């Protein structure tokens, strides 16, 4: 299994591959992942130029551990096959497939990726996939998409196109995404993959961004798509367990392990009733804290 399947992905920052100034050093902002975009941000007559930039950036720039995800062009375009070839030849970490509407869409890209791995001598399974759901049909089919490939690490909501398909607009309240977010996080958890929220494009409304990010964290999402470095720090703060949460999780894990050995199923921690049902959540908090570099305990 690819060890990066479940890596920490609190923030995924979009960067236009056509802009050398953007892709040369985004690691200084320390996002968990960067999204090198060959799709919407790149003008139709610059698709070729963006690929050369991408290839050399992947080969020559040390992104210092930041995950390098590439958003390719959709299956409804003439560009995706060459996009997959350059992604594999350049050895990116993951490919984001846009406008996914079915499991077959993912399988089609997976097959092209396998062919490219063969062509360029790249180890099979070393590049992961994620799917962006951007239509009502895609969201309806979220569960089958989440189960489509062992290389698929997650799904992301793409709000701009989704609201167009829904025949509404982005309101700023998030009401238009209520069902899609619920559907997607439920499907992702049922299938055991990660789930990422759409971008928040009003850079002047940091309070709104923080409120939305707190909400999607509470819903269960793993991270958020980012369009500006200013959004990274608040996102990481929201998605990183607090000291209080870590201490509580540590107590629960230790107590459950201890009480289980004694045959005790229900007990109290800091005056609150705890049973085995709290264990996975507490373990996840510890794992997240470890991945975020804020846990130095012995669990």
């Amino acid at each position, binding site marked *: 299994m690819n060890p990066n399947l479940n890596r920490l992905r609190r923030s995924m920052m979009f960067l236009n591959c056509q802009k050398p100034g953007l892709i040369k050093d985004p690691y200084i902002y320390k996002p968990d992942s960067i999204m090198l975009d060959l799709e919407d941000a790149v003008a139709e007559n610059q698709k*070729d130029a963006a690929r*050369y930039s991408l290839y050399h950036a992947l080969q020559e720039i040390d992104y210092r551990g930041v995950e390098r995800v590439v958003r390719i062009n959709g299956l409804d375009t003439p560009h995706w096959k060459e996009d997959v070839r*350059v992604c594999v*030849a350049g050895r990116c970490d993951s490919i984001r497939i846009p406008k996914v509407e079915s499991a077959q869409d993912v399988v089609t890209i997976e097959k092209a990726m396998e062919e490219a791995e063969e062509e360029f001598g790249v180890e099979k399974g070393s590049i992961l996939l994620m799917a962006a759901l951007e239509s009502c049909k895609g969201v309806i089919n979220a569960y089958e998409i989440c189960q489509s490939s062992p290389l698929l690490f997650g799904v992301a909501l793409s709000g701009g196109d989704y609201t167009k398909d829904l025949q509404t607009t982005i309101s700023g309240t998030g009401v238009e995404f209520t069902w899609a977010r619920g559907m997607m996080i439920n499907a992702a958890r049922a299938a055991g993959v990660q789930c990422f929220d759409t971008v928040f494009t009003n850079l002047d409304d940091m309070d709104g961004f923080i409120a939305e990010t707190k909400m999607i964290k509470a819903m269960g999402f793993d991270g958020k798509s980012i369009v500006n470095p200013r959004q990274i720090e608040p996102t990481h703060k929201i998605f990183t367990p607090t000291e209080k949460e870590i201490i509580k999780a540590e107590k629960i894990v230790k107590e459950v392990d201890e009480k289980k050995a004694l045959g005790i199923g229900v007990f109290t921690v800091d005056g609150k009733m705890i049973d085995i049902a709290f264990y996975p959540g507490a373990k996840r908090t510890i794992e997240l804290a470890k991945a975020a570099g804020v846990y130095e305990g012995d669990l």
Partner: protein
Amino acid sequence: MEVKGTAMAGTLESSDAQVTVEPGTNGIELTIESSVINQYGRKIRATVMETLERLDVKNAKVTVVDKGALDCTLKARVEGAVFRSNGITENLPWGGAIR
């Protein structure tokens, strides 16, 4: 590879380079314009020439307007211009002539 027509890649934005190739008959005729020509002129020339050599371009007029591009960007813009001059956008030799 032969440069079959005039083609350009890149922009005049900071950190980028605009590379223009035209058909030639007298080897590589390279012109470089850069605000850092005194510090990096030789390096820019070497990168452009190496890239052209990998692409097997033997005759061309090449103009580079550099705006502080990294090596990787210079290579990308030279390749972009040369392949555009041949109308090639698919089945590119990633890891071969492009590397």
